């Protein structure tokens, strides 16, 4: 049997040498980023920016293009990624960060299991805050909490962070808020703030920052997040009167860590997944991309696929009573 181990020993370096050829090369291929929204929004803009820089970090410098598959708040795109797209690494998908909520609350039309996607990770995280007009008498969270009169908050509608975040502040923490929904966009609410039709709005910190800088609104409270700039703001969960309320607030904010999710179809080979994870991590650190994203006022930050799956497991493993309670407040949307 000696010759066999000798042969193995002789072949070992060969096998090791063969390893690099296993790294899939995309030379001459075209990779499609499937976006679950129409052109023009934040998900689309992020995908188009990544498409410009990903080729430099993928083996073989493939061409990367963006394809839009809108509809059903991007459920249609996710269904396509799950059931139709081939697991060959040539199609990657990005969609609504709240799709785990859609799966959790069993929204009709969902034909995917979030956990079975091959997760590349997320290209950004989002921090939701509530900001109110700077000329109001409430300067901070403590003062707002003790407000006697209703503070009017504009929202785009259920399922959006402009709506759900203040709704939980109102219903679970008892803040005197009056939520007026139906504005066509968060920019539209901002205009309503400016003409004093509403007193404030909730939304991502990045989208509110220009207005905070202009001293039109003042940040008051935030949801749990990784954003370091607003660390000093109080966090909604820490004021929860009971564990159940805390769980509901945590559940609402959980998907915000994976605000720009990117996935490969289920059963994509592990080596392809690894190539993409590495490429995303490198692309988001690329100085050229950082310069561009800063100009466009997006804050890109890579959250690894493993981290994303951890968040998803946390969201999707909630006990039934919490889910039922949660669905009373939060509906899937946008």
């Amino acid at each position, binding site marked *: 049997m000696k010759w066999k181990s000798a042969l193995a020993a002789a072949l070992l370096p060969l096998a090791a040498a063969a390893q690099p050829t296993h790294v899939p090369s995309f030379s001459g291929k075209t990779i499609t980023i499937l976006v679950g929204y*129409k*052109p*023009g929004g934040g998900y*689309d*803009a992020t995908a*188009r*920016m990544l498409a*410009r820089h990903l080729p430099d970090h993928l083996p073989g410098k493939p061409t990367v293009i963006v*394809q*839009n*598959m*809108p*509809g*059903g*708040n991007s*459920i*249609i795109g996710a*269904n396509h990624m799950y059931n139709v797209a081939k697991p060959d690494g040539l199609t990657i998908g990005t969609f609504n960060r709240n799709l785990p909520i859609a799966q959790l609350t069993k929204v*009709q*039309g969902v034909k995917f299991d979030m956990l079975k996607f091959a997760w590349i990770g997320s290209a950004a995280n989002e921090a939701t805050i509530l900001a109110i007009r700077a000329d109001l008498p409430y300067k901070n969270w403590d003062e707002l909490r003790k407000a006697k009169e209703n503070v*009017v908050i*504009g929202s*785009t*509608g*259920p*399922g959006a962070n402009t709506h759900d975040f203040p709704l939980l502040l109102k219903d679970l923490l008892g803040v005197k808020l*009056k939520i*007026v*929904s*139906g*504005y*066509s*966009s968060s*920019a*539209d609410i*901002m*205009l*309503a703030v*400016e*003409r004093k*039709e*509403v007193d404030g709005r909730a939304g991502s910190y990045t989208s509110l920052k*220009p207005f905070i800088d*202009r001293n039109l609104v003042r940040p008051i409270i935030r949801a749990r997040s990784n954003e370091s700039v607003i660390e000093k703001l109080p966090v909604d969960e820490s004021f929860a009167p009971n564990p159940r309320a805390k769980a509901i607030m945590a559940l609402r904010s959980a998907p915000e860590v994976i605000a720009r999710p990117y996935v490969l179809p289920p059963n994509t080979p592990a080596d392809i997944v690894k190539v993409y994870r590495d490429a995303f991590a490198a692309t988001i650190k690329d100085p050229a991309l950082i310069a*561009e994203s800063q*100009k*466009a*006022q997006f804050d890109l930050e890579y959250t690894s696929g493993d981290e994303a799956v951890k968040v998803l497991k946390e969201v999707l493993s909630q006990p039934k009573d919490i889910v039922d309670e949660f669905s009373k407040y939060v*509906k*899937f*949307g946008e």
Partner: protein
Amino acid sequence: MLDAFIQGLLLVLQWKAFVFMLAGIFVGFWVGLLPGLGGATTLALMLPFIYNMQPVEAFAFLLGMHSVVATTGDITSILFGVPGEATTAAIILDGHAMAKRGEAGRALGAALASSFVGALIGAAALALAIPIVRPLVLTFGSPELFMLAIVGLAFIASLSAQGARGMVRGFLAGGLGLFLAMVGQDPQAGVARYTLDTLYLWQGLDLVPVLVGLFAIPEIIDLVVRGTSIAGNAPAGRISKGVFEGVKDVFRNWWLTVRCGLIGTFIGLTPGLGGAVAQWMAYGHATQSARTAEERKGFGQGDVRGVIGPGAACNSKEGGALIPTIAFGVPGGASMAILLGGFFLLGLVPGPDMLTKHLPVTFSLVWTIVIANIITVVACFLLLNRLTALTNVQGHLLVPVVLVLVFIGSYTSNSSYADILVSLIFGALGYFMVVAGWPRAPLVLGLVLGKIAENYLYISVARYDFAWLGRPVVVVLLIIAVGVILFPAVQAWRSRRAHG
């Protein structure tokens, strides 16, 4: 102020900015001509090209492209009855009817001249409004926006045929439009309404497949049934001749052109109403200019005023839509939202600064709209003979090409087969409406205004209870709405008196 005005012009005339504008115009020209491929989508696609440009060059490129789309969209609408853009559907009613009568040249001449004048009005309004822009936009809160939608809906009275029967049909069609606007997830409770358990309808009916079906398919059926060319048996020589007649028509109806231009600017200026509304209100206003019952009946059969009205509004609204985008960072529509992204990319922060520190840049935007339109209109006039000749091509050669354009056009809105199904369904509906003499314009008006009216009514009541009814601008708009509704009756009375 004047200084900045001239500085803005000089900025656009720098050779680099000018070349980029020409490139933008070239792209916009084709995007406008091809149905479905919308201006907003193209802007999103072109955004990455501006990373390495200076602000003035980038906006010459983007805005040059954008302000051309609506102009050339009119051409497709008039020649084939296929809406080149969602914002150029109203011009079909009379424009295509003229083309079928062999007056494609005159219709195109009128459309190009009126959209040119409209662009100038929009740009002038933008320039003049700069000092008062902030208070002006801030006056229009949700209650006022709701009332504006009501004024828009009141135009159903003008868009319907006269007489009790015509009115009832108009209002029923408008009601159907309002009903269709309800499809989708509602923004107050998040309930899915009339979605037939499909994901496709969650975000509501898309306007493009509906318009393409409603307007283009009946024309295609008509063309097949007639078995001739679009212009029928009109002699070939006549078709392209009327171009200057059309230009003259604009000057003959000068004040109508100006008024419709102002309607467009105003609708553009109000964020949330959207470009699809402006053309129909302008068309409705144009029908009010009919002096006799016979004249009123001529609308929809090829009255040149029905071309001039929406033509003028279609481009002037772009100047208006820039105002809230620049002054507040609040886009007046989907295209403006993408332009806003461009602002950020270039390091310009929309807001008060754009009206003071960056005033030359703001004026360069105004100039870009003006110059891009001059170039496009001249280019179009050079091509008109070739374009109008298409209405002389035999139907059996034209129909396959137009059908392909129609289906690609509707498919591009969601890349879903359901888009084509929607077009076919509305095509059948449109065909039967035409055959039975029901007006399609009120249906479209209901569809575009339904959601706006619903949302702003909800916000007004939720925010102010009933106190909003007493706001001065609301009252004024209410009086205007009543006036618009009663106008056809006044018209009928006037024409009776003139005859009797």
